[in-house]
């Protein structure tokens, strides 16, 4: 048994009456009152998520950019300071160790945010790959709390949070996938316009010691704008509607980026990077697609995708009744012959065959 972990906001979640669930060894709030209400609040107003379980690494040194070009699938050296980029940490065999967001804070100073459940694997891979580079990769997860404020009202709410000062770029001028510096009660706070919901929003990386005060300040500022605390259940349905992959479902050591529709993340013409020689999927490898169905009965992770004769075409990796769209949606890996948009397939829902259609991702796109 590994030790059960809690974020610095545990007491706040308990006071709000949250139900908890295990996620990658962490006890996290799965919902506070209603996961549907939390989902809709994020689409229509705003939600605040404690995502302090996620891992953070600093990458610093004269070779930091060159190191990241080697260690990760993308060309991070091409990012300008203040930008953020989605990337992948690949194994030598081209499988995915984790998906991450990289923030360039200065020429020789980067921050990587990775999934909680992959923290050890990411730390080990980052350390192994430093050989020959003037760089230090350090796990700074325990020092930090990460709070996501997501939804159309997020920017307005954050401008009203008491205690956030010294914002380096005005909120309204912060671009999607960028970061800015600020302070909360005098302690450094990183503002990142990123998220995992398909809505506009920010992720606030601050000191663990200030987490409760920041959480309280966000809730206080958000109350009149319809902000609610939201749990992992809503986060999962939000990211699924937005077509965003979840490690352990759409991504794994056995999946290569192009299979998951992430070929664009890999800059294959880089001279060298870990996984380069094996990054191309085998011919005929299954690919990730979106599926939509009618009715209210959802396909779930692990259910088969079949043809009219019952022959297996693939397997669902995530599925739910979409709260926003009102019909079932799923992501699945299917044989390439069945991956074309509009292909009619069936979901094997515990013995009942439900008609479904291959659909372009994402299922939901916010209005700009």
């Amino acid at each position, binding site marked *: 048994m590994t030790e059960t972990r809690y974020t610095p906001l545990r007491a706040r979640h308990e006071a709000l009456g949250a*139900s908890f669930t295990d996620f990658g060894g962490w006890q996290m709030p*799965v*919902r506070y009152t*209603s*996961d*549907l*209400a939390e*989902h809709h609040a994020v689409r229509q107003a705003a939600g605040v998520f404690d995502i302090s379980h996620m891992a953070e690494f600093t990458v610093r040194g004269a070779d930091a950019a060159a190191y990241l070009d080697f260690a990760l699938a993308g060309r991070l050296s091409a990012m300008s300071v203040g930008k953020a980029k989605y990337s992948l940490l690949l194994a030598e065999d081209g499988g995915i160790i984790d998906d991450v967001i990289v923030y360039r804070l200065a020429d020789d100073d980067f921050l990587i945010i990775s999934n909680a459940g992959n923290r050890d694997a990411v730390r080990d891979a980052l350390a192994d790959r430093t050989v020959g580079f003037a760089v230090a990769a350090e796990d700074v997860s325990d020092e930090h709390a990460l709070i996501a404020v997501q939804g159309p009202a997020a920017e307005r709410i954050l401008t009203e949070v008491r205690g956030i000062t010294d914002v380096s770029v005005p909120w309204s001028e912060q671009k999607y996938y960028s970061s800015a510096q600020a302070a909360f009660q005098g302690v450094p706070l990183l503002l990142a316009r990123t998220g995992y919901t398909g809505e506009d929003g920010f992720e606030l990386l601050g000191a663990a010691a200030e987490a409760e005060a920041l959480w309280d300040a966000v809730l206080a500022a958000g109350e009149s704008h319809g902000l609610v605390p939201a749990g992992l*259940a809503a986060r*999962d*349905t939000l990211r699924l509607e937005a077509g965003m992959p979840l490690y352990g479902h759409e991504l794994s050591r056995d999946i290569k980026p192009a299979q998951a529709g992430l070929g664009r993340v890999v800059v294959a013409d880089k001279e060298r990077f870990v996984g380069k020689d094996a990054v191309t999927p085998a011919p005929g490898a299954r690919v990730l697609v979106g599926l939509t169905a009618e009715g*209210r*009965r*959802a396909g*779930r992770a692990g259910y088969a995708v079949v043809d009219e004769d019952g022959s297996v075409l693939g397997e669902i990796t995530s599925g*739910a*009744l979409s*709260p926003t769209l009102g019909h079932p949606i799923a992501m699945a890996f299917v044989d390439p012959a069945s991956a074309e948009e509009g292909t009619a397939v069936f979901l094997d829902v*515990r013995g009942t065959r439900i008609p479904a259609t291959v659909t372009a991702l994402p299922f939901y796109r916010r209005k700009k």
Partner: protein
Amino acid sequence: MTDLTSLKYSEEHEWVAADGGTATIGITDYAADALGDIVFVELPAVGTELSRGDVFGEAESTKSVSELYSPVAGTVTEVNQAVVDDPALLNASPFEDAWLIKVSIADGALDGLLDRDGYTAITEG
């Protein structure tokens, strides 16, 4: 409000209210809360014969699926279409509006089920 001490319970979190030869069956608030927001309910046809422990339907939330196990043996005489049409009733009113099925039962059908204290001992254990 239903007097929860007047009900019988199964370890699978169904409740039973017996009235003569008819048992009304639902799921407990504990089960509904554990599932989260329930978005789909499937119930059997009237006339279905159930043995104790048979799966008589299922409830799906956004996050998970739960099978519904009959706590008694008998024949389904009535099905609550209101819950099928609005599964959120299960979260809002699990002991009243969101009863699931009525079953005609024989004498002794409730033997071995838990009383309120026995059931709360499980959920609070």
